[in-house]
């Protein structure tokens, strides 16, 4: 699903990644850890195809439509409602039975009652739940999740635990977290980055 060889990334003179080798089969679950500034986000952006490496190679069997990317930002429009955001992304990502899928995800993540409210009125945790709905909406083959537990309360984190456990084995995951113990039972591999 994802193979990287001697992957590296430089921004001008600053090197943020060096010599990363990866071989993640379909259904794999890679947990990436490391201190701030170790290049976790850069690595995930490369895995998602949003950033090109400056050294080494990466091969991805999933085409861009099969990638679900959750970044530090929720990647939703604050002036649109949750429903409008998911309708927009559902259309752009060619989601079949968009309304049913949108409704199911909003209900699962506890946002159904506020689906007509603008995202600007949401708490950070609610926005993160919506971001997870957006990522899962098109049932991607490769899920690239950068700190998916950030801003979630315990109930939200447990919802995400259930979702990850359900999809474990069916989908391929690359995930960063500062709490690797939370996903220890799901992980098939780990990568620790250093500064």
């Amino acid at each position, binding site marked *: 699903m994802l193979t990287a060889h001697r992957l590296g990334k430089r921004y001008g003179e600053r090197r943020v990644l060096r010599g990363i080798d990866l071989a993640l089969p379909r259904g794999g679950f890679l947990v990436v850890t490391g201190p701030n500034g170790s290049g976790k986000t850069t690595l995930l952006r490369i895995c*998602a*195809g*949003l*950033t*090109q490496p400056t050294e080494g190679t990466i091969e991805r069997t999933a*085409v*861009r*439509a099969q*990638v679900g*990317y959750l*970044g*530090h*930002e*929720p*990647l*939703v*429009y*604050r*002036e*649109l409602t949750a429903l*409008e955001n998911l309708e*927009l*992304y559902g*259309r*752009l*990502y*060619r989601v079949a039975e968009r309304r049913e899928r949108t409704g199911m995800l909003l209900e699962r993540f506890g946002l159904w009652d506020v689906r007509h409210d*603008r995202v600007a009125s949401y708490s950070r945790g609610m926005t993160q739940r919506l971001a997870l709905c*957006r990522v899962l909406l098109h049932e991607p083959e490769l899920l690239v999740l950068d700190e998916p537990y950030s801003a979630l309360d315990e109930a939200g984190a447990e919802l995400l635990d259930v979702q990850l456990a359900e999809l474990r084995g069916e989908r391929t995951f690359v995930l960063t977290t500062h709490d690797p113990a939370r996903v220890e039972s799901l992980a098939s591999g780990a990568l620790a980055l250093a500064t």
Partner: protein
Amino acid sequence: MSYVRDVGALARKDLLLELRARDTLPAMLLFVAVTFVVFHFALPGTPSRLETSGLLWIAILFTALLGLGRAFVPEREQRTMDALVLAPCDRSAIWLAKSIATLAFLAAAEVVALPLYALFFHSITSTTVAAVLLADLGICGVGTFLGAMAVATRARDLLLPLLFLPLAIPIVVGAVGATVGEPVVSSPGRYLAFLALYDLLFAVICWASFEYVVAE
């Protein structure tokens, strides 16, 4: 058909965002109205059609710049471009939809601008209206393309006018030529054709190369 639907969904999103946030259109309306009022009092006597045609196009161009500068602000602030470029839709749909939305804002500003121009200076001819329509297409198409380039840089506010204004010179030449009309210009129709050619040429260039603008 899916391309048209994608463009429609993206343009609708931009119009909805503006309807709710009201970040761009009020500023454009206020700017263009104030500009004409300032010109009205700054120019003594009755300025000629030749002079005021230039003023009209300066006002339109800088009003458009206000809108173009704001075009990709939601994508920049909420980083939604990452999600848009991963979508399986043709990336040029993002450019086309943004151009359509910016065109709508510019046209709305001109609905106020043209009657004000007629009130303060000279009457509006059908050739002027045609020139405005054709120039708007070029301004929004090229400006949106350059806006997407500029938004990825730190000097975005500076870069957009620096990139856009030189490329807008042919638009000004064609638009002023068509607006001035006879007897200064022998055939305004040729200027309209020039504007149409500019629109077509740059639309093809922007449509074909937008993919590379949003890729890293």
